């Protein structure tokens, strides 16, 4: 049998516990051995479930260890990582959770899972100097409104019809108190330097942040936010975002010639 055929059979048997030990495998006593092959099968499943458990600690805590492991096992069975970089494994877990019948009663869970995945991507994102209020201080008001900002590589916005930011924060503590979760929250993740921040945005600011991150100018984003809610305050919102380090400071020559 050629090497590729051997590997194919091995891989198929790893994926399906119902399959027998693949042909061509043996032991010192001259027989194939189910329990020996099960070590490989177990290593694959346990290590991938463990990788998900590390990436989604709050999801795990919310549903409980047993539930999480059962759900993760079901996910792992059909979704192997597409690269050995496990910090990028689990991007589609949120969609899987949304269609996982036993989790149907937890409507907020997919968004919470999405937030945790975004958190890990923000954690591993490239370094870049954050744009501060001072960097925009020299711009005339018109120029400021025309200005488009470049998101910092770590910045992520996760929106939900549920209070996922509050749930996430509450589960960073040892004791979780009861809370209302039925209102929408948008969570902005920023990591201007070493430390990652998760901020629940004021509802009135969310349309502004969405548009800015999508590449709209400050003026365009502000106009849109005002149309959504007349109480929007552009100066306050922009100052807050810059303080969080949501945007990237570009090299000096490009600061002088914004496009």
């Amino acid at each position: 049998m050629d090497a590729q055929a051997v590997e194919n059979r091995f891989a198929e048997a790893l994926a399906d516990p119902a399959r027998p030990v693949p042909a061509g495998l043996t032991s010192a006593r001259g027989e194939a051995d189910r329990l020996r092959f099960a070590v490989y099968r177990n290593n694959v499943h346990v290590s991938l479930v463990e990788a998900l458990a590390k990436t989604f600690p709050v999801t795990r805590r919310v549903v409980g260890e047993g539930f999480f492991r059962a759900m993760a096992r079901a996910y792992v069975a059909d979704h192997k990582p597409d690269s050995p970089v496990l910090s990028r494994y689990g991007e589609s877990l949120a969609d899987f959770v949304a269609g996982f019948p036993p989790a149907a009663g937890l409507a907020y869970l997919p968004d919470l899972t999405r937030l945790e995945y975004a958190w890990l991507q923000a954690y591993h994102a490239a370094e870049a100097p954050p744009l501060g209020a001072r960097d925009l201080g020299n711009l005339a008001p018109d120029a400021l409104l025309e200005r488009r900002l470049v998101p910092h590589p770590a910045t992520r916005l996760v929106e939900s019809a549920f209070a996922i930011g509050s749930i996430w924060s509450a589960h960073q503590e040892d004791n979780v108190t009861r809370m209302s979760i039925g209102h929408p929250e948008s969570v902005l993740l920023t990591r201007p330097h070493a430390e990652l921040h998760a901020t629940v945005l004021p509802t009135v600011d969310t349309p502004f942040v969405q548009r800015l991150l999508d590449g709209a100018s400050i003026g365009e984003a502000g106009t849109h936010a005002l149309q959504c809610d007349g109480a929007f305050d552009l100066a306050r919102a922009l100052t807050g975002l810059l303080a969080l380090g949501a945007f990237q400071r570009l090299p000096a020559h490009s600061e002088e010639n914004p496009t």
Partner: protein
Amino acid sequence: MSTAPTLPASAGLGLKPEHYGEILSSMPAIGFFEVHAENYMGDGGPPHRYLSAIAEHYPLSLHGVGLSIGGSGPISRDHLARLRRLVERYRPASLSEHLAWSTHESAYFNDLLPLPYTPGTLDCVCAHVAEVQDALGIRMLLENPSTYLLFEDSTIDEIDYLAAISDRTGCGLLLDVNNVMVSAINHRLDPHDYIRRFPVGKVGEIHLAGYDETHDEAGERLAIDAHASAVRPDVFDLYQFTIARTGPVATLVEWDNDVPDFATLKAEADRVEAALAHLRPGQRRVA
């Protein structure tokens, strides 16, 4: 290929995120730190900040687990590029990988899976090792595996297979003494005989770890390469037998699961350091 970088002939430890702070504040006497390359393939963030700070003070060994060098398919260009970025960023004193496969048709299994030892797979592994060394511009070390089953198709002895890879590609070997013990238990082999026959001149690093144990269907001992406990006495004895042949070699204690506090890891490293110090210069190579 540039001059082979080398690790100091002393005890090293696997670097774990839970110990970053303590290492930087106490600067323990450790010969080197080793990391799994795949854990540092993000673009930035705290992992790189810590690793950069620690690499300023200690030699660094990059240990890959995801190249799938023993696989029948091609080496992933993307993964090789990620590894090259890491090598360029840190200029490690050593780069090592496994004689195993882990990726099949783009699905990554996160385990080190075995391959049959045949002339055909030998050609394929040698081509992969050569490709990696060419792409990275450094000599790599290839590690002997721990296995739970054997292939009926295998026609080449594992040591001959490893020696042939080294001869044909110029790569060094990483001798995992725990893997030797695990495979010896699992396949009724004599671990001392394995060490006696191993091409010790090619060994650039030794690995030690703890194994777990269960039984197979016939009730025979089945050792599992778990990396979840201290180095077992039989493995440590085999290590002392090994270094009497190799002379002082960089030796890593691997403890990747149920990671203990740093003091416990340091005690393991100290035990290794004492064994290395015990080798008198005149005893360096008795092979």
